[in-house]
């Protein structure tokens, strides 16, 4: 690294809601001969970063921002872009600072920030690069590497379980340079190999974790199971740590939310089945803690429960995949193909479920639409949940995204999906129109749920009461059902989860989505918008849209409402709020 030139031209992104501070910081950074970009909104900052990840070297962000918690932004950036992030605040309380470090901040500055502090921020960039170099080259710093490995050895069994352990945090910071670049970005910066946690890679990671058992997992075991040449234990360990952090936060939030969520969604539906379903899902969080091994059992349980509860009501048939954190969904840069992480199943059902926007997100992702009444309006609308800023979850908060840039997929691999359950109910009013018309829209709908995430759908079973379902390209399979007596293709096989669709006896469409291949959607969507689709947490991993050539359609549409995290989601049943997601969706 050229010491003389290096700090100069450092590309900094400053995020602060206070315009005065933004102006001052910009000036200060310019005086350091840095290249500055300012941003007043965290969401916009994320957009900018996603758009061109390699455009920045470091991010400085305020902690208290109205649209998104600074720590959440920090997490996002850490997971998706892996840029060094410096936090700022007027509040210098130890607990806050510790929280910053815990979330991965490489530094925490107190306002008012001084020039000399800003002059030194380049060290964080340098440090990161240095560690990457060490990773790759290895020879000169073989000893260092060994030390790193040894450090991790100790961390393996115990420390990594304790995310809040300060020592772990320290070591995490040190060893968090485990990126082996497998593909260079647009080559503007000197970047050594970085491990891009692609969806595929993360899928393997998650599979390995599942296989080992969450409580027994360790980087070495994962690494061995994954069996990826070139992947180091540090890579895995670092990734695992991030994963755990993410999981623990989700779990915490879900536990908090369980009390508040209380079946609001279904309360007015008057169907006890729904309530039961919901409650079962809400128990998920506690299950999560027990480990992934429970996943399949849970699925079975739920399937059974669904079984008994299904009557001929318009109840959603959610298929929950309790192991919620398995899947990693991300937009792979190379193609529209998105493979999801693990076993998330989703059930698409079309039914007449009013959206409950008061409902706080829970484990289950429910995409609710109006019931399919048999009449298809020419135009339907997508419903968007109202965005609750205070509850935006870091990873999941996409509802505020202005116009998702679908051409530029999100950073590969570093997105974690929320609870595994995907339950989507969309209402399609129509007169027995060919389902093939509906499917793409449906799939698009699902697709769009992930902001720059892609999900894999292994098989989609769609059951129409009185129409023939034709399958679309790729792996989406639709079975036709006569009289709704049975559901075909209702099993998707995932490594960890099995699920069965429950037959619905209403004219409803139940789509079951597994994961693996990306189902492709036809380019030209039918002009059939889904009506009243509301989103809660949808584990995108469950949706696999292979060969989907027009990701922009859905993503632009529903992206704004998709957050695939534990889901601080609020939903609005105000359809008028968001008429058509995006014109492109129904091109």
């Amino acid at each position, binding site marked *: 690294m050229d010491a003389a030139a290096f700090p100069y031209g450092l590309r900094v992104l400053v995020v602060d*809601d*206070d*315009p*005065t*501070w933004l*102006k*001052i910081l910009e*000036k*200060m950074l310019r*005086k350091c001969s840095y290249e500055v970009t300012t941003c007043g909104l965290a969401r916009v900052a994320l957009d900018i970063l996603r758009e061109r990840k390699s455009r920045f070297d470091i991010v400085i962000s*305020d902690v*208290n921002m*109205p649209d998104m918690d600074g720590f959440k932004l920090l997490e996002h950036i850490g997971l998706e872009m892996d840029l060094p992030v410096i936090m700022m*605040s*007027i*509040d210098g309380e130890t607990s806050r600072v510790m929280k910053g470090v815990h979330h991965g901040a490489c530094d925490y500055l107190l*306002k*008012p920030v*001084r*020039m000399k502090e800003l002059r030194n921020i380049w060290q964080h960039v340098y440090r990161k690069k240095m560690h990457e170099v060490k990773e790759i080259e290895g020879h000169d710093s073989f000893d260092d590497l060994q030390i790193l490995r040894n450090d991790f050895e100790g961390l393996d069994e115990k420390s990594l379980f304790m995310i809040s352990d300060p020592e772990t945090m320290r070591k995490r910071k040190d060893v968090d340079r485990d990126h082996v670049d497998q593909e260079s970005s647009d080559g503007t910066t000197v970047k050594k190999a970085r491990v891009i946690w692609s969806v595929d890679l993360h899928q393997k990671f998650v599979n390995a974790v599942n296989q080992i058992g969450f409580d027994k997992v360790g980087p070495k075991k994962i690494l061995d199971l994954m069996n990826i040449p070139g992947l180091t234990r540090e890579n895995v360990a670092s990734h695992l740590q991030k994963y755990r952090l993410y999981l623990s936060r989700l779990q915490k939030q879900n536990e908090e939310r369980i009390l508040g969520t209380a079946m609001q969604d279904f309360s007015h539906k008057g169907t006890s089945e729904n309530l039961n379903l919901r409650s079962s899902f809400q128990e998920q969080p506690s299950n999560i803690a027990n480990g992934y091994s429970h996943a399949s059992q849970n699925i079975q349980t739920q399937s059974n429960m669904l079984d008994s509860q299904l009557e001929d009501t318009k109840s959603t048939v959610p298929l929950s995949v309790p192991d919620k954190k398995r899947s990693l969904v991300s937009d792979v840069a190379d193609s529209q193909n998105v493979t999801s992480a693990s076993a998330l199943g989703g059930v698409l059902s079309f039914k007449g479920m009013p959206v409950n926007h008061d409902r706080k997100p829970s484990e289950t992702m429910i995409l609710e639409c109006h019931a399919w009444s048999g009449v298809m309006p020419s135009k339907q609308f997508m419903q968007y949940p109202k965005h609750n800023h205070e509850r935006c979850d870091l990873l999941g908060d996409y509802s505020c995204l202005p116009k998702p840039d679908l051409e530029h997929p999100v950073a590969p691999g570093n997105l974690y999906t929320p609870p595994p359950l995907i339950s989507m109910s969309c209402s399609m009013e129509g007169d027995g129109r060919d389902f093939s018309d509906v499917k793409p829209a449906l799939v698009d709908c699902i697709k769009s749920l992930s902001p720059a995430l892609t999900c894999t759908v292994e098989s989609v079973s769609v059951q129409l009461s009185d129409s023939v379902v034709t399958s679309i390209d790729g792996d989406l399979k639709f079975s036709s059902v006569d009289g709704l007596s049975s559901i075909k293709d209702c099993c998707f096989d995932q490594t960890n989860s099995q699920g069965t669709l429950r037959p619905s006896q209403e004219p409803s469409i139940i789509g079951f989505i597994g994961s693996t291949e990306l189902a492709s959607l036809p380019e030209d969507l039918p002009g059939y918008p889904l009506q009243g689709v509301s989103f809660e947490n949808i584990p995108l991993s469950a949706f696999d849209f292979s060969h989907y050539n027009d990701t922009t359609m859905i993503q632009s549409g529903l992206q704004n409402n998709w957050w695939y995290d534990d889901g601080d989601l609020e939903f609005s049943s105000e359809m008028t709020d968001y008429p058509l997601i995006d014109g492109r969706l129904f091109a």
Partner: protein
Amino acid sequence: MEYSNLRRQTIFMKKNLFDQGFLDEQFNQLEELQDESSPNFVEEVVDLFFKDSSRLLTNIEQAIDKYPQDFYRLDSLVHQFKGSGSSIGALRVKNECSVFKAHCNDRSLEGCRRSFQKIKREHATLKQKLESYFQLLRQVGPREHAVSSRK
């Protein structure tokens, strides 16, 4: 007025602002940032602050009326305001914000109300004083300002 007299006045005025605790070191930092590429930097920043902070004050006032028991909200809003004040070194304003936050902690609505009035007063006073200061500076001339104001 005589030039050097003007200069002396600006120096004196600024010293007063510091001595009386209206401003702190941050203000000096701002002045040091001012250079040829942004000759009116300090004044611009101060203007920006007062514009934004007025908006924040309105929010706080409304919140006190509409959500008098929501101390968490009030605390957040004042925290934001305090952070903003720290940008130009508005010391008295910042200190009063801390008092307000303490009242929030104690859940004392009356204390909050009183404190808020004080914040508003300090805010208005500072605004007035800085306006006079910049007015004087303009008379002195930008170049001189950058040099003379440095302490």
